[in-house]
């Protein structure tokens, strides 16, 4: 019993140390990226990419923010972007499908990388699969686009 408690104490403290060494620099780097205005630039690079999914180019911003920062913050930005840029419901759904599969990717990857898993493998698999799925979904969601009201109903606003 004492052995188990000792094992858990030492083990959990070591694991947290191991993870914080990776996570803290990553979060610091992300804040620097944000303040350098790099997120906007990355979103610009993504404009041609979202065209492949048949989305308006303004969809790139909420998508990139969600991928990098996370879903809860991303959701707020999605609503704002949808309202300001009149994104279609289809675009909104596609962004959300992409994001439920891949969000806060640097944070999540850092945590697993701290345990020894290849960050490149995890990150590239996650983004590629999310992109493939979104592309497929963009084909299946075709009908939603036509005659769809762009305005969000009150119920759907946060």
């Amino acid at each position: 019993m004492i052995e188990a408690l000792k094992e858990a104490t030492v083990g959990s403290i070591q694991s947290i140390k191991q993870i914080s060494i990776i996570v803290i620099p990553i979060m610091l780097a992300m804040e620097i990226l944000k303040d350098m205005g790099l997120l906007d630039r990355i979103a610009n690079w993504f404009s041609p990419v979202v065209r492949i999914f048949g989305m308006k180019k303004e969809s790139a911003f909420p998508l990139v923010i969600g991928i990098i920062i996370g879903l809860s913050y991303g959701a707020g930005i999605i609503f704002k972007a949808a309202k300001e840029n009149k994104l279609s419901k289809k675009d909104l759904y596609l962004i959300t499908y992409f994001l439920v599969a891949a969000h806060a990717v640097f944070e999540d990857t850092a945590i697993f990388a701290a345990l020894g898993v290849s960050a490149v493998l995890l990150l590239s698999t996650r983004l590629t699969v999310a992109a493939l799925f979104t592309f497929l979904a963009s084909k299946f969601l075709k009908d939603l686009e036509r005659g769809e009201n762009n305005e969000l109903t009150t119920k759907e606003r946060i």
Partner: protein
Amino acid sequence: MALQTGSITLDTLKRGLKSGIDVTLQLAKVMIPIYFIVTLLKHTPVLGTIARLFAPFMRFFGLPGEAALVLVLGNLVNLYAAIGAIVSLSLSLKEIAILAIMLSFCHSLPVETALAKKIGLSAISVIAVRMALAVLSGLAFSILL
């Protein structure tokens, strides 16, 4: 709609450090109790029973039965809980990689499904998509790695 236009200041570094420490604290808060519980379970027959019960399903992914605990915690609670279980069980690097990709696609279902629902997607479709991606990627990793 730019997030901000400023440059790097001391404030940037402070905020970055703070968010890094926040993540670490959140992690610690969830991970430490899970670590203790799983370590104690290891010294009882409970973990063995769970392992035997789930071994037939987890075998498909090249995982031992007790890895089911990791998937359940990751999906019902969050990634930090899953990490707590991963580090307290003795898993190989390949097993951790398989769990990592599965959990990457599918985790924190109660909280994140609620968010997706707010945007207008149906809960069932979101959960189905995420579970399908987790299963497929888990199978792929267990075969390819």
